[in-house]
Structures are given as structure tokens and as C-alpha cells.
């Protein structure tokens, strides 16, 4: 065996088949994901009423199972109003397998701060996760969130970003991408869909708060997502993870394409995946098989107006320019795609 094959082989993390899969029968248990384990906590158990193929249901189980593993199940969750609350907990039943609290649409960060303070006062080591949709986080809940960051409260806040107010019928949020059709940005008129040049990207705002840890993730890269949640639970202070969770209903996509869409959102550069600590970006996840943004958009009915009559709307190129800018800004191209 010469040296070049050796290094190639060493580069393979989980052997040739299984590097990107949930588990792998050929590796030791501790090298497998939390989701591969028959003993995972299934924090969000069966019988919930999320739509078929719901990315948010999947992302929440991925994240909370990992957080439970990291804290030895000593964890309380606080939930903002939104699909995740409604489809899991229509009184009197609940899908949650951990202590779980719901108060209002806009105050999850503040409630979580309070729970964390209560645990401290009671001398308990119980950790706290707050979670909400993009609407509950980037819009109505933003003030509470910013306060939680600024005070460096010991809470991990997870935002499940499905790019709209899905629970109330798919309205626009400040996380809805340009050109996307929602109930409040219809595909009508000279500029159909959401306008360009508005909205905000909360992960960057979180970084600007200088908090200990910020990360983005998707349901398409489970190992990356779990690693980030586990890392976050090893840190004290305010932490923020935003997870891209495709919504088949709101995005107008087949239920089976949920993970594919999250993967394409990353591979085209539209959804940058990175980590930041104390105000500085420390790492970005490289694109593995780059695709044009068109490949991502064309699978979703919310962008159907960009592809009418067999011609691409010029705004496809404006979206591509956004991807290109992300690639540049976050350094998304490079060699360590396997790292």
C-alpha cells in the first residue's frame, strides 16, 4: 500500500458506506449517532399530529434527544407557540418525554431564563432548553431572546426555522426568503412572492451579542446537528442554534423530500452552516456537491412562479447571487468537505 492510498483511507471517517448515514453496523456504538441508538429517548414520541414528513418534528427529536443524552436526561424544555407546540401537545395528550412548559408565542426565552434561575435557586443542576419557530424567535420573541443573550442566561435556545408562520397558515416571517410565496406574500403582481432586501438572519445577530456559542444546522446533517447540540450543552451561558427544518405544507413540496430539501439548501449555499464562539465565527461546513440554487427552488411550489412558461425568472439569478455571497462570506467551498 503506498502513502497516497493510506491517507485516502484515513480520511474516511465512518468507512466508505456510512460516513453520512445515521449509524453504521461496522463501527463501535460510541461512534454512532444518538439517533442510531435503540435507547435514544424519543423526546418527541409517536402519535404527534405533525404533517407527513414534517422537518420540524424531526429536527426537534434530533436536537432534544441529543440534549437529553448530553445532560443525562436532567433537562426541562420551554416551548413557544407554533406548530411544534400545537402538534405535540393538544390537551390532554402530549408527545414530550421530558418536563415541558408552554406559555406564550413571544416569551419562550424569558420563561426559560426564569426556569434556569429557579433551578439555580433550588440548587439543582437541571439544564434548560428553549425552543420555538422562526416566527416566535426572529419576530415576536426577539426582544426576549436578545435580553436572554445580553444577560448571558444559562439557556440553549433552539430555533426551528421553517421560514414562515406555518401553524397559522403559512404567513411571511422575517426569516422567509426572498421570492417565496406565502399567504401574505402571494405570487401576484409584478414582484410575486416575498420581496428582496428585507428580513433578518438571527444567527448573525446572535453572534453580534458575543454569546459563548452560536451555530446553524439542518435535518440533513444529523451528525453535525448532534455534535453542535452536545457541544452547546457542555457550555454554560446563553447559546443559540438555528436548525433549517423544511415544511412540506408551507413550502409546497412532497413529504418525502424533506431531508433532500435541507441538503440542497446547504449544497447551493443559500443556508450557510457554521459555528461561532464569543462573537467570532470559528468554523463553516463546506459544500460537498455544489448545486445551482435552481435545483433547490424548482422542487418547491412556493417558488413555482419563478419557473412559469418554461423560462426562468431573472430573480433566480438574484437568489443565486445570494448563494454566491454566502459562499464567499462563510468560505463554503474547500477541501475539507469530509471533515
Amino acid at each position, binding site marked *: *500500500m503506498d502513502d497516497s*492510498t493510506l491517507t*485516502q*483511507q484515513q480520511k*474516511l*471517517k*465512518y*468507512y*466508505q*458506506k*456510512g*460516513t*453520512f*448515514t*445515521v*449509524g*453504521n*453496523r*461496522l463501527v463501535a456504538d460510541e461512534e*454512532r*449517532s444518538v*439517533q*442510531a441508538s*435503540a435507547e435514544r429517548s*424519543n423526546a*418527541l*414520541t*409517536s*402519535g*404527534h*399530529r*405533525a404533517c*407527513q*414528513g*414534517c*422537518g420540524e*418534528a*424531526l429536527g426537534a*427529536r434530533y436536537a432534544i434527544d441529543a440534549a437529553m443524552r448530553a445532560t443525562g436526561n436532567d433537562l426541562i424544555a420551554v416551548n413557544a407557540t407554533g406548530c411544534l407546540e400545537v402538534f*405535540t401537545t393538544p*390537551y*390532554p*395528550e*402530549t*408527545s414530550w*418525554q421530558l418536563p415541558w412548559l408552554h406559555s406564550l408565542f413571544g416569551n419562550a426565552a424569558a420563561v426559560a431564563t426564569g426556569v434556569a434561575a429557579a433551578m439555580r435557586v433550588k440548587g439543582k443542576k437541571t439544564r434548560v432548553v428553549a425552543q420555538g419557530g422562526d416566527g416566535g424567535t426572529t419576530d415576536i420573541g426577539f426582544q426576549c431572546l436578545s435580553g436572554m443573550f445580553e444577560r448571558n442566561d444559562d439557556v440553549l435556545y433552539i430555533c426551528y426555522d421553517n421560514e414562515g408562520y406555518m401553524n397559522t397558515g403559512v404567513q411571511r416571517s422575517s426569516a422567509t426568503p426572498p421570492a417565496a410565496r406565502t399567504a401574505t406574500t402571494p405570487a401576484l403582481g409584478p414582484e410575486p412572492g416575498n420581496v428582496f432586501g428585507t428580513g433578518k438572519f438571527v444567527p448573525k445577530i446572535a453572534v453580534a451579542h458575543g454569546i459563548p456559542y452560536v451555530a446553524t444546522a439542518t435535518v440533513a446533517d*444529523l451528525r453535525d446537528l448532534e455534535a453542535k447540540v452536545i457541544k452547546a450543552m457542555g457550555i454554560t451561558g446563553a447559546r443559540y442554534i438555528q436548525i433549517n427544518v423544511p415544511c*412540506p405544507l408551507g413550502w409546497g413540496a*412532497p*413529504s*418525502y*423530500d*424533506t*431531508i*433532500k430539501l435541507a*441538503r440542497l439548501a446547504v449544497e447551493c449555499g443559500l443556508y450557510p452552516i457554521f459555528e461561532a464562539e464569543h462573537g467570532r465565527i470559528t468554523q463553516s461546513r463546506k459544500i460537498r*456537491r455544489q448545486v445551482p440554487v435552481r435545483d433547490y427552488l424548482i422542487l418547491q411550489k412556493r417558488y413555482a412562479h419563478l419557473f412559469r412558461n418554461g423560462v426562468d425568472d431573472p430573480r433566480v439569478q438574484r437568489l443565486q447571487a445570494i448563494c454566491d455571497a454566502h459562499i464567499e462570506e462563510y468560505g463554503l467551498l474547500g477541501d475539507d468537505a*469530509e471533515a
Partner: protein
Amino acid sequence: MEHDFAITLDVGTSLANHTGTWRTFRPDYVHRLPPCNAACPAGEDIQGWLSFAEAGEYEAAWRALTKNNPLPAVMGRVCYHPCETACNRSQIDAAVGVNAVERFLGDMAIAKGWAFAPPTQKSGKKVLVVGAGPAGLSAAYHLAMLGHEVTLREAGPAPGGMMRFGIPKYRLPRDVLDAEVARIADLGVRIEYNSKVSDLQATIKEGGFDAAFLAVGAHIAKRAYIPAGEATKILDAVQVLASMEGAEKPLLGRRVVVYGGGNTALDVARTAKRLGAEEAIIVYRRTREKMPAHDFELEEALEEGVMMKWLSTIKHVDAGAITVEKMKLDEAGFPQPTGEFETLEADSVVLALGQDVDLSLLDGVPGLEFSDGLVKVGPDMMTGAKGIFAGGDMAPSERTVTVAVGHGKKAARHIDAFLRGETYAPPPKHELASFENLNPWYYGEAPQTLRPTLEIARRSSTFEEVVKGLDESNALYEARRCLSCGNCFECDNCYGVCPDNAVIKLGAGKGFKFNYDFCKGCGVCEAECPCGAIAMAPEEI
């Protein structure tokens, strides 16, 4: 319990809510036929044995392999591996090196002395096998494993057929062949050498055989009429190659011309080089693209200095020289003469124009049918004569060792059924696992391992094996490149990606099952299954 307004359920978990009723499509675990298996003329379950090999369970891999093919060390050297041509991985980077792993397993079995487990029950039936080439050896092995008493009669002094008297040593060392034949003999197969069958009917009667399998190969060299002067030296390729097994090596001279374009022509030319010829030129009437020999064989020959004369036919042979006529291809791709001639110096001319079958042993057998000098067989490998089966080069088919092994196996299964007065029905085949059934995202980048080759200098002077084997780490790496097309490899993806926890993990080696009480039929598992082992079907509503 009394409920408040609009509340229908007791306080409890959502497990009471059976969301499986939402389902309009239903996922199921399926097996699909990997393209390698579909392409293997010996009917090997390649994906199956690779799955043991990639776990480092080499003996289990070898046992799974030899269920279908008793000659893996031979096969891992001479098979033209149509499995690799069909391999889905070639659409990602390069095909899995199936042939190299097969050889690794075969060599390991020889080194470790692994033996076949003989059957515990005997059938009491006697079967005659004629010819100890790959077809005969394969049939004898499978018949013996099925409990029948096998007598293998071979005209020559040693086993192997064309594997010994055709394929040169530098491609197939004889100790490898001997080891794999010995293992078959150890099963209790009686092999009688120098024991040509010249009257089949009489032999069957005298021996009291209940059935016979014929595999006499094709050994009579085809001749072409070439006007030749006196003192010219014209030889047959099969004769030259066969004499390499004897004490007296053939005398070919310094300049050797080989006539033909198949793998036999290449083997003769390469052999001539090793015997000391300064020039070995292959004269072939068509082009490289039309040559029946495989590209890699031609490459190896060219590396060793064999020269090619394309689009040429031999018109005349004289002492020390030949005359060739240049050809050109017509619109239909057939070579046509041009009237342009050329002279080449040649001490000998070896004809490699193919072989015919010696059918004399069949004289007087009623019911047989022939076509183009070959014995016709049915889909069950039985000839027109009841209880007499045939395969390998003597039956109409592609002529390779692997096809011959496949014929032997197939015939054995039909003979077994025939002996019980039944007919053998092969199990139905699964639907093919096409590349479109896979989700290639999940496979890591992993280029193919190339087998080392002997340095050129030693290839022109010795008969040492040219292509070397893989070591264990290489073989393991190569086995792990397999995508497991169409068959679950327990990656846990379905178990992980279900938003409804509707996949139950049954534990190592046991796979998974769906919990249809909660499966909503979203299809994410099917879309994210790397290997196409899940299928969605409309639910009956």
C-alpha cells in the same frame, strides 16, 4: 372519566393517537437484485459475500461465495468480471474491485486450508461427469454437495481443462488450480485421469449411472486455408499452449506471427515473448474496437512488447516470411481486401482462429440435436437425450470459465431434481436494484484500489504471475466500497429519519420493521435509504 368540552381523550401520551390511519402510501422493506449478481454467469451472490468480507468475516464470505462457485481463487484471476461492468458504483467513482476481493478470499482459503462441509445425507444415485474443465468440476462439486455419487472422467493427465492447457501460468499459477481441484476431490468426487470416454452410451451402461453431465470443451483448432511453401512452420494456438504443460517447450523461433484476435491469440503471443521470441506480432483482419479480446488483456500484451498488425490477412506463408494483405472495413464493418500486400519476416505462424468440439463420444446417442457443431441443450441444460446434460464450451453460449462454472451449477440442480423425478424451478428473481433506486449522497468518496502488477522486465522472461493480489487492508477497503445495492446494510437511516418514530430497530443482524400504527407514509425513509431496500406502495383504502 368525564371530559371537558371538546376533549375526547384521557390525559396521557400521544401514543394513544394512531396516526397510521393517515397513511395513503405504505413503506416496506424489500430486497432488490444487485446488478453484479444479475450479471454473474456463475450466479454468485456477490453483494451477499461482500457484506461478510466488509465486516472482516472472511471465512463466512468464502463460504457464502462457494455456495455458488467452488473456484474463487481461479475466478479471482481469470474471470472477465461482468459484475464490475454492471456495478452501480461505477456511476459514483469506479466499480467495486469484486474480482480482486474474490481472489483475496480464494487465496486466504487455500492458505488457511478451509474445506467444504460434505453433505450428511447420500442420495444413492450415481452421476457421470465427462471432462474436468470448469464446467465438469463445477457440476461435480454441486452434485457431490447434493449427496450424489460422482465419477469424473478426464481424458487428459491432469484437471482443469483450458484452465490448465490454455490459460498460461503467468495468469493462473497451477498450484492455485490444483488446490481448488483438490478441495473438490476431497468431497469424495472420484476423478479418473487419462480416461477418455469414447462411447458415452456404453460408459453409462457399464458404470450404472443414473444421469450424465458432459463438459468436453472445444479443443479442435479451427484451420484456415493458407497457401504455404515448403519448410514453413504453421502451428495451432491450443497445441502450443497445451505443450507448455509438458517437458518439451514449443520451438517457435525468433520472429513469431500469431493469426487471430481473441484472447487465445494474445496468450500465445505473450507466451512466445516469454519463450525468448524477439518479435511477436499478432495479425488480425479487423480493428482494435472489433477485437473479441478484452481491452485490459491487449494493454498487458502491448506493455510486454507484443506488436499488432490491424486490418490484415495472411495470404501466403513461406520459409522465413509471410505475405499479408491490407484490409479496410466496409460500411457494414466487415473487412474487405484492398489488393495491397506486404511481407513480414516470420520463423513460425501460430493460428488462433477458435476451436471446434470433438463430438465423437456421442456417436449413436439417440435424440441429440446439434447446431454449428455444438450440442443443443434446453433451459435445464438437458440435451435431447433423456438424463444426459451438457454445458461449457460444447454448448452454445459465451465461452468463459465463469459461464462454464454457471452451467455446471445449473445442470447439477436440474440433474438433482431429475433424479428425484421432479423438475427444478429456480426461485423467482427480485426486481433489479438500479442506480435510481439508490441515494448516493450517503456513500463516502473512495477510489478503487488497483492491483499491483509485476514489473515489465520480469514479464518478458519469466512465467511469474503478472497481476498480484490485494493485502488484507486493501481487500477490506475494497469490500467496504460496495454500496449494498438493494439490500439493507443496517445504516440506521430509516430508523433515524422517520419524523414519527415509526421504525423499530430489531438489533444487530436483524434489521428493522415498520410500526404501522404510527407510520404516516411520508416516504422520507424510502427517499433517504442509501441502498434502495425500502419501497413505497399505495395503501389499499
